[in-house]
């Protein structure tokens, strides 16, 4: 059976340029200028999974993103990978949204898109790393969810997901519609082909404001965000050092024992 699939994507600073990223000490937000932007890596896995489901079962893939106008590039890239439709919620009044306000806005946009069978998200973003949006989104949509999925199979109105735990995994059966967040082990995202790139430029990215999705000003942006970020700081990484002094044979034995003890052997 064909499925209506929605994929939430976020444009983030390219993690390969992480050393260039600075934090604004006043606003406690990331300074994005001068750092190339990409689709959040895990979101690409979510999109890839949606595309594979569509290829196997048929249906339609819509990507939804919330962000400034530049995020249109991320939407275009998603279209180039094969998405059928792209919606960008873009409105200055959404600036400063925490995960709750973001999840609410996304849920309203998804409702406006129409019926859905499955919403796929990356388990977390490289910039915020909270992992909160997918469960919050599921709550707002009133559907079940499972996070950190590395294997997914759809059969009729049910989905079977394997979700990673610290030491093992859970097998979860979900009734659709549902929200699923994925981790990188689930698949390898495709590279956009030339024909995909040409196609992406024929599909306009739909841009919606908070009025379009029926969000009030009080629910949007900083006003709709109960979270207060009291401080953000860069972690200083220091290597632990131990020095052994003595003849080479003893040093070798000492080093061997240190390695074994660290490895827990």
């Amino acid at each position, binding site marked *: 059976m064909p499925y209506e699939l929605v994929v939430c994507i976020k444009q983030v600073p390219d993690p390969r340029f992480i050393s260039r990223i600075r934090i604004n000490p006043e606003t406690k937000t990331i300074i994005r200028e001068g750092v190339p932007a990409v689709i959040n890596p895990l979101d690409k896995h979510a999109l890839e999974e949606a595309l594979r489901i569509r290829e196997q079962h048929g249906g339609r893939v819509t990507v939804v993103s919330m962000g400034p106008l530049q995020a249109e590039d991320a939407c*275009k*890239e998603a279209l*180039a990978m094969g998405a059928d439709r792209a919606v960008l919620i873009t409105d200055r009044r959404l600036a400063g949204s925490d995960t709750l306000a973001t999840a609410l806005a996304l849920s309203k946009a998804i409702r406006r898109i129409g019926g859905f069978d499955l919403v796929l998200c990356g388990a977390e973003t490289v910039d915020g790393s909270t992992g909160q949006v997918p469960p919050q989104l599921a709550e707002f949509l009133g559907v079940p969810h499972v996070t950190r999925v590395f294997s997914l199979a759809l059969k009729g109105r049910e989905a079977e997901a394997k979700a990673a735990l610290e030491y093992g995994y859970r097998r979860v059966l979900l009734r659709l519609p549902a929200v699923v967040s994925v981790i990188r082990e689930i698949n390898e995202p495709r*590279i*956009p*082909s*030339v*024909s995909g*790139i*040409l196609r*992406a*430029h024929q599909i306009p990215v739909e841009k919606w404001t908070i009025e379009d999705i029926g969000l009030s000003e009080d629910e949007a942006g900083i006003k709709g965000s109960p979270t207060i970020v009291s401080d953000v700081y860069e972690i200083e990484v220091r290597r632990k050092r131990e020095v052994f002094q003595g003849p080479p044979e003893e040093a070798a034995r000492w080093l061997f024992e240190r390695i074994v003890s660290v490895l827990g052997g």
Partner: protein
Amino acid sequence: MEFTFTSKQEMLRKAAREFAEREVAPRVQEMDETGEVPMDLVKKMFDLGFGGLLIPQEYGGSGMGHVARMIVIEEISRISPPLGFTLQIVHLGQAPVIYFGSEEQKRKWLPELAKGALIASSAVTEPTGGSDVLGIQTTARKEGDEWVISGRKCFITNAHFSNIHGVLAKTGDREFSYFMVEADRPGVKLGRKEDKFGLRGCVTGEIAFDEVRVPEENLVGSPGKGLRVALASISNVGRPGVAAVALGILRRCLEEAAKYAKERKLYGKPISDLQAIQWKLTDIYMDYQTSWLLVYYAAWLRDQNIRVDAENAMCKLWATEAAVRAAKLLTEVFGAYGVLREYVPQRLLRDAQVLIPSAGTSDIMRVVMARKALEFSP
């Protein structure tokens, strides 16, 4: 004046870079060691549409054009010059059909060439002449409705996995014709694979044609006008393609030199603080930037259908010689590490040097440019 890429071109660069970094990079060492062409990667390039950039959409390609082609070859060559070279020859093999084929020939071959079901070589050079095309001794004689081709071609890139060969053959006194010859026709024989010191993983070798019969419809362009077919293809596709490979090498040299100079510490500070090292880096930077301008300017002209033989020759000469200079400087920045096989500089140096005689030496490029230079007399 406009120096920016379109949104489609930017996206194409990103896709090509992702392909190169994710799929090609892990194979580079193996290609250099074995000299074998990674056919699965060649197939992937076709699947991504990189094989059909010059082929118009109505014939199954994308028609994205010359600038787009330079972007893809630069990005792939930044990681693997031999794979970039393989791709550029794929395009060169298609060029005679794209630019000189009849409507029927285009419908027959281009869709297959775009998806990689057909891969065409460009078999022009012979032991007795490459740039001296009049020295070519392969002949084609007419017998009924067929042409019978005999001769030997050498230095033919992709020869050993192409399933159709573009062949320039003598059909009269100082008269040549261009034929598409299917590789499975009786009498087509593959000869040796050359053991090159660079661009390893890109195959170059010999093809012999022993009384090979092809039908009249395999003749591309007008009979007797084959020289123009071959030379225009080499000028507009072959030389710029080599230049784009050089551009990829230059970009890599700049990245590797900057990275190493910032990481390597001597006298208690990174060697990037030393002016002697900085000057090497700026020389590489200038060579990359000037080559970039020449390569993309010539490609832009070709996309406007402006005749650019001199500009094609100029970007080929400049970028390939710049790549050799840059790779040599990079080896020097790396000090003794630069000559070790496990580090990248020596490989780039070997690869760059192979580009100098490809598609015509620097001397031949000067001959081509001299005609244009002389036109400047007021």
